[in-house]
């Protein structure tokens, strides 16, 4: 990373965070803030918190995608590979079906059920995958995939029992979205994301070594068991919170770490901060598209990230198969 790249990255973030709130169903020009109360309210209470929220969600997903790919020693891993998101989704779908009108610290029943589902899933995976010699990457992946399938079938079952309104709400939730008002979500996510990032960043060098395998990492002085456990719990809890707030928004956790690795290499000391920031910027612009494409209506942002992410993923697979064919 040379200085020019660092400066252009900072510039990109500033540009994104400052400009995107003005773009939306209706364009609000910066001087309207001072002249119109309604414009000021739209910018301050709707669009700015939403942009910050989108940034934090993208930031978290790219960060966790990168570390899970190292933890699982698999560059096709995503924040959802371990099945935590399906636990969260099952919780959310249950909350919608049961129709609880529960509110707790200002969070809806969907959020509370979803976080509970994620935490329960984290615990189940940990109890299955742990062993004396740490969590074997393959066992973790298999456990995650199995749990995802199991929970998906339960979600389908609840869908089947649900009426049309409930089904619509469930599907809409599963598409992922960032429609929020006010500062509660971004201000709750902020500390969780920042603390997780700082912790992971402190261990970036150890994560490099962890990606080369258990035995190698142990022999280089990495406390593999402890590091694995902390990455697993730290990352999973952040994923649980993100999924509860924004639904399972796909592809960011997969494509952004890949993109950054292609551009600047696999060293996590650079990959983690740059990947997370680019992930945040990417999701802000995807959400800006989602807000404007069919204005005054909105597209679920998950559709946009998948539309951009899908072709990228195919290209990646193509590249993989060409490489192994040579």
């Amino acid at each position: 990373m040379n200085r020019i790249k660092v400066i252009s990255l900072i510039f990109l973030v500033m540009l994104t965070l400052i400009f995107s709130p003005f773009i939306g169903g209706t364009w609000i020009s910066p001087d309207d803030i001072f002249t119109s109360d309604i414009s000021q309210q739209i910018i301050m209470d709707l669009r700015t918190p939403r942009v910050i929220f989108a940034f934090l969600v993208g930031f978290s997903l790219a960060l966790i995608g990168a570390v899970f790919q190292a933890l699982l020693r698999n560059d096709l891993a995503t924040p959802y590979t371990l099945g935590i998101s399906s636990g969260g989704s099952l919780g959310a779908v249950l909350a919608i079906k049961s129709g609880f009108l529960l509110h707790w610290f200002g969070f809806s029943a969907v959020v509370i059920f979803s976080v509970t589902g994620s935490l329960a899933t984290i615990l189940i995976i940990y109890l299955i995958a742990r062993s004396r010699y740490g969590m074997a990457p393959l066992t973790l992946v298999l456990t995650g995939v199995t749990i995802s399938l199991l929970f998906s079938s339960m979600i389908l079952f609840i869908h089947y029992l649900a009426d049309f309104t409930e089904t619509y709400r469930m599907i809409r939730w599963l598409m992922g979205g960032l429609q929020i008002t006010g500062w509660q979500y971004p201000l709750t996510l902020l500390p969780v994301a920042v603390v997780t990032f700082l912790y992971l960043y402190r261990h970036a060098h150890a994560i490099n070594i962890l990606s080369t395998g258990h035995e190698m990492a142990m022999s280089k002085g990495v406390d593999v068991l402890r590091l694995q456990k902390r990455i697993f719990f730290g990352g999973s809890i952040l994923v649980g919170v993100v999924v509860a707030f924004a639904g399972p928004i796909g592809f960011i956790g997969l494509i952004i770490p890949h993109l950054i690795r292609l551009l600047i290499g696999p060293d996590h000391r650079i990959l983690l901060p740059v990947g997370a920031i680019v992930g945040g910027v990417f999701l802000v612009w995807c959400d800006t598209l989602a807000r404007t494409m069919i204005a005054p209506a909105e597209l679920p942002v998950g559709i946009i990230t998948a539309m951009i992410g899908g072709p990228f993923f195919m290209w990646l697979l193509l590249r993989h198969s060409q490489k192994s064919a040579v």
Partner: protein
Amino acid sequence: MPEILNIDRLNFAYQHDPVLEDISLTLGESEFVGIIGPNGAGKSTLLKHMAGVLTCREDRLFIENKPLNRIPRRRLARAVAYLPQEVEFVFSFSVDEVLRMGRYPHTHGIRIYSQRDEDVIDNVSRMLDIEAFRLRNYSDLSGGEKQRVLIASALAQEPKLILLDEPTSALDLHHQLGIYQILRSQQQSNGLTVVVVTHDINLAAQFCTRMILMDHGKILRDGPPDQVLQFQTLQDVFGVKVYIDINPMTESLYILPYG
């Protein structure tokens, strides 16, 4: 001779069948030890215990008289380096980044490498003759180059004991010899203790000061090559007929199986 590693009656089983039975041995400074024996004799398992990659519940292994299980990982990595039989990188790290991994036990947190770290890395790259490709991707290197990079990364830990699991099994004659020569020069000039697990008995006989013959999880013979490489023992352990002679060029033993 100062003791580096001491093993006191080590027993180990992965599941139920014992893999190591009642292993006791002591390694001193500046030894070159070859562990030989048939497949499944427990050689690699023993090496993994010495590296602290596998552990047993009781304190059976001691590094400089401290129980290995209780030494913090980083401190252990400053004393003992280990090269697994197979190392597979999922991400394409550059050679330089692989070398830096060897300095991890000497750093704290996210800290940038000190001048001393850089000096050590320069030094090991020179010794292993890998300076020319330090900026290339590890995954693009040939088998011999990869092995040299991994050994350099292990030596960058500045260990007192280096453990290698079949370090030359994938290499041609030239590189096989090269690896052993590097290890011997480290052993002789820096007092490094080298332990190799190998099937190449002849190379081991030429370079090792001490050989350990294992079978069925037990140590059968332990001593200088000419005491371990005995006709009857080898025929019994490996189940083949062998011819043993002295190589007039090196005056070390060599064996040839025949049938």
